[in-house]
């Protein structure tokens, strides 16, 4: 295991320190916690938004703390959901009198720990609501199981819920907006090479030089199946077909796209994937509006990518285009030509 780290035990703490050091105008760390909050808090009277999860998904989630997105991000150990006491700290910091929305990715550990934290916050008189992101179409959605995982589509939830909250909307309105995103967003990913959790010291799975893993999550979990490495256009087609089928997209639909690198896949390869996404959408006569391409929700140094489509309506489009200013996502720079 070759990693640019000092000590496997300190990885999360050191990275949080590095983030705060690199983005002092955006981030503040609640002392003694794994909680990053906005340096300049939101105005009172606006709904706070807290997200979080295991570490190892950077820039998620600390990278999305800032104007127009999150108020606080809570980090667990690598790939391990944060604990309720930490989440509670995040909720306290994010609370500006109008309640707090929790954005939770659908993993048992995350759901349970956030749920317990929500109980604790209620005990303190903090009004809370939550949404559970479950965008991964690689996993069957069934009432009788845990359902689908939450992966990169979460970033669209941050963006849109953040914009709604920034507008001064109520907690139910922010929650509804977030849920509208969740109802319309689907993702799927694959790995060309696995990742290694620092403390474990060995890869989460192994692949031969010609193999890839389809339908992976963001924790180095094995995916749905293993197959020979395919060219980018076949991968794009396969993922898009799964997603589009689940979303029941058809000619004339409007979508936003997220072409997300898993950590070790360089931008030049993501751009090639993007080109193929564009070709496919055009062929299907599906219009696209926003495209995000880069590393938004990673899995340590896994090589691979995920695709996310968000079906847009007028409302979602409006919030998606609203300005935001965070370490990882900034848009809406104003200037004269």
């Amino acid at each position: 295991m070759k990693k640019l780290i000092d000590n496997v035990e300190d990885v999360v703490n050191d990275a949080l320190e590095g983030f705060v050091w690199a983005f002092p105008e955006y981030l503040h760390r609640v002392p003694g916690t794994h909680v990053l909050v906005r340096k300049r808090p939101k105005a009172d009277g606006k709904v706070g938004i807290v997200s979080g999860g295991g570490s190892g998904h950077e820039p998620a989630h600390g990278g999305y703390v800032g104007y127009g997105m999150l108020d606080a991000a809570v980090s667990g150990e690598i790939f391990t959901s944060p604990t309720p006491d930490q989440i509670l700290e995040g909720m306290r910091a994010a609370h500006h009198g109008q309640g707090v929305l929790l954005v939770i990715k659908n993993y048992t550990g995350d759901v349970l720990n956030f749920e317990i934290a929500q109980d604790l916050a209620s005990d303190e008189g903090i009004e809370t609501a939550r949404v559970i992101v479950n965008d991964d179409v690689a996993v069957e959605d069934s009432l009788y199981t845990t359902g689908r995982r939450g992966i990169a589509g979460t970033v669209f939830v941050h963006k849109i819920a953040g914009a709604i909250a920034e507008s001064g909307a109520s907690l139910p309105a922010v929650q509804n907006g977030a849920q509208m995103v969740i109802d319309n967003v689907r993702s799927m990913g694959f790995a060309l090479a696995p990742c290694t959790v620092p403390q474990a010291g060995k890869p989460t799975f192994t692949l031969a030089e010609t193999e890839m893993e389809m339908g992976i999550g963001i924790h180095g979990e094995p995916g749905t199946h293993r197959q020979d490495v395919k060219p980018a256009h076949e991968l794009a087609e396969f993922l898009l077909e799964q997603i589009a089928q689940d979303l029941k997209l058809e000619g004339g639909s409007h979508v936003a796209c997220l072409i997300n690198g898993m950590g070790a896949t360089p931008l030049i390869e993501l751009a090639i994937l993007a080109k193929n996404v564009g070709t496919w959408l055009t062929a299907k006569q599906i219009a696209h509006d926003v495209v995000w391409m880069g590393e938004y929700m990673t899995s340590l140094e896994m090589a691979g990518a995920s695709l996310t489509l968000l079906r847009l309506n007028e409302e979602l489009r409006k919030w998606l285009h609203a300005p935001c200013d965070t370490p990882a996502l900034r848009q809406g720079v104003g200037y004269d030509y």
Partner: protein
Amino acid sequence: MTTEQFVQLWQCFGTVVRAHQEHLDDLDRAIGDGDHGTNLTRGLGKMQDLWKDPIDTERNLADLSKKVGMTLLSTVGGASGALWGSALVKAAPVLPSASACDDETLVLWIETFVSNIEERGKAQVGDKTMVDVMRPAVNWLKASTQEGSARLPVLRELARQWSEDTKDLQARRGRASYLGARSIGHVDPGSFSSALWWACVDRVLGG
């Protein structure tokens, strides 16, 4: 069960889990995210640290259950941390605010926190989780007519077997459920650590 035994039980669990950390991680790597051993070791290690100094004056089982629960809740993380932690906190009132309890109370305490795990996790026997060991174990204890200390070595072996039996199941709860049929053929890590817990129950309270 005395407070000494209570503390010994969790110290034993910490030691045994640490010894099996890599195996637990490997089990979790196969059908989860490979951190179950690391998670429990972190939390139980923290608890052992708290108890490094001569056991404090807190000769109060209810408080101890709450304390262990809170510690696990804030240090383990993941599904297992939330389940063990919150269940122990919720089950604490079942124990007396005293330095010992009888066998019946002990079983009720276990029954209560296992029920809490089931409720919180919405898992049933057969879902391929820790419940596949915890629930049959409590039920067996309740149904058993043997003496408390004599029956525990038997239960310890049964728990081990119940964990082994999760191998053939398809996961319906927890991270392994994302794998669908691919989860079949692997032992559930949480069931394995649960069996280790029963081994400690035997070691500390058994004959």
